[in-house]
């Protein structure tokens, strides 16, 4: 899987490349408008991580270019602007998703995975990992061929863990993934612990390993090979 990361903030670009490379993506990067256009002209990417405000031009122009040239690269916009118009304009111009800075790398990773799944046609809506078998269209999970009876939130949680496997995910990142931006209860994570506990129990009961590891209740990590 090949990604292009278009971001002018060097430190952020570094983190993005490091995190996404470790997730198994082949990452290329561009720090300004011209560099990005150059790369897009030359190569096809599975997904482009696109900053809107770039030196030398706007990310929206790049979207327009992709559209005009009938390129099918997936695009996720990452922008400091939470402006609705930008979001709508971006989606209209063919972007697949929109993430507002500051985002969690784990969240970006999950969104990229979702875009890539959508872009690929044949059969790739399945995720297989160790004893997990997930059908992302039917939204069903099997552990050792046994169907797990998961709530919607538990399903989301599991997917989030699997895509960010072997990573420590902070409770903030998890809560925000599940409940979105209006989840602002930094003082109370009980409901999160409950969900994780239930998911864990269901996996173990289905014969799976106890693969969700708590990091002193500040974060969680799914240990998979």
């Amino acid at each position: 899987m090949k990604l292009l990361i278009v971001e002018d903030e060097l430190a952020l670009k570094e983190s993005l490349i490091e995190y996404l490379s470790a997730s198994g993506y082949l990452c290329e990067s561009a720090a300004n408008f011209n560099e990005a256009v150059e790369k897009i002209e030359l190569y096809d990417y599975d997904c482009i991580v696109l900053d809107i405000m770039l030196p030398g031009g706007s990310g929206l122009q790049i979207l327009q270019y992709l559209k005009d040239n009938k390129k099918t690269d997936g695009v996720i916009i990452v922008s400091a602007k939470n402006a609705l118009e930008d979001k709508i304009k971006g989606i209209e111009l063919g972007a697949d998703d929109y993430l507002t800075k500051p985002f969690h790398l784990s969240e970006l990773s999950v969104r990229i995975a979702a875009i890539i799944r959508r872009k690929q046609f044949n059969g790739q809506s399945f995720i297989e990992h160790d004893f997990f078998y997930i059908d992302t269209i039917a939204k069903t999970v099997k552990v050792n061929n046994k169907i797990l009876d998961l709530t919607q939130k538990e399903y989301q949680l599991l997917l989030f863990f699997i895509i960010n496997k072997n990573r420590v995910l902070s409770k903030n990142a998890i809560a925000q993934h599940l409940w979105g931006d209006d989840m602002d209860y930094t003082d109370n994570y009980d409901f999160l612990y409950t969900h994780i506990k239930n998911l864990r129990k269901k996996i173990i009961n289905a014969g799976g390993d106890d693969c969700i590891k708590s990091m002193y209740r500040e974060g969680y990590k799914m240990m998979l090979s």
Partner: protein
Amino acid sequence: MKLFTKYNRISIAATIFTFVLGSIAFYFVLDYVLTRQLKETLRSEQFEIIHFVEEHHTLPEIQNTRHQWITVEKSTTILAKPLFKNAETFNPGENELESVKQLAFTIDVAGQHFLITVNKSKGETEDLLKLIILVTVGMIALILLFNFIINRKLVNRIWQPFYTTIDHIKTYHISNRQPLQLSNEPIEELNLLNESLNTMTQSIHQDYQALKSFTENASHEMQTPLAVIRSKTEMLLQENISEEAIKQIIGIEDGIQKLSRLHQSLLLLTKIENTQFTFNENVEMSELLSQKIEEKKELFESKHLTIEKNIQPFITLQFHQQLAEILINNLLSNTIRYTPENGIVTIELDEEKLMVRNTATENSLDVEKIFQRFYKAQQNQEGTGLGLAIVKEIGRIAGFQVQYLFHNQHHIFTIYFKQ
């Protein structure tokens, strides 16, 4: 009291005073002139008599009229000079007592002294006085009448541009996209007022715009460094680090989260103020509200809150989808945050209003301040302090009335859709 009423009162008092004073002066002047004339008549009568006596050495035959009569009596004393005086005497012609001007003099007719008194009635002078009083009263009455008519018919018309200006000022809100544009008026003072207001709002507007774009830019500019910090802490978490280090990093994470949320809320507020929203979407409020409550189910449960719903189905508003979501979200989040554990939350929706009521342990919140930015009843609370300010602001631009009440140990937030 209106300025013009005040002015009018002073003006009328001054006019009446002037009139009374003028009339008094007029009376005295006239009185003086008439008295002189009276004396003149009396004197000429005296001369005629003297003249007659000198020529004929006998008293003339006396011709009395109704207003003038002469009395003659023998006298032993001689007046050194003719004597004028005012007196009340019997008028034989009218057969009544009358106020008169008298001229008394003595004359020597063939060795015999006579005291002759010429009386002239002052009736005419009194008539004059009456006339003057009548005219004065009449004039005052006329002045009052005209003033009343002018007040009624004219003043309101003359002041109309002033009230138009006042109406404009009343409806002016700093977040309106336009400064005031008041018209030119033919009246100098009103024109001055309008021009000054135009200039003032123009400069206020510019300052405000500058401040707003500063807020917006500052918030935007801070998102990128925040993104860097967040990504770095996330990378740090992946290192093989101690429990203590993990806790520190999560602490940083929390800070970033708050800062980011604060910025987003500030930006949202600025955006609501800056953007001309059109309320042309049919928002299914009942559905949206139920959906939002469902989304937050875990949050309600985590604090063991009981939800009592009374949501009428199919309530639709001419509104803005995203703003409606924010509005409901903020109200619900606020309720979840501030309702004490095991509390009861009542949510009602009907055609007129959306009401959220929750049990409270503390007393009423400060009604004046509750919708202000960064107002927190207690300083250690976790929210941004912007949630309700956003609710209020959305209400303002949508024309909803947002109300807070404290009743029977319950906080009640109500949004009335129609004002």
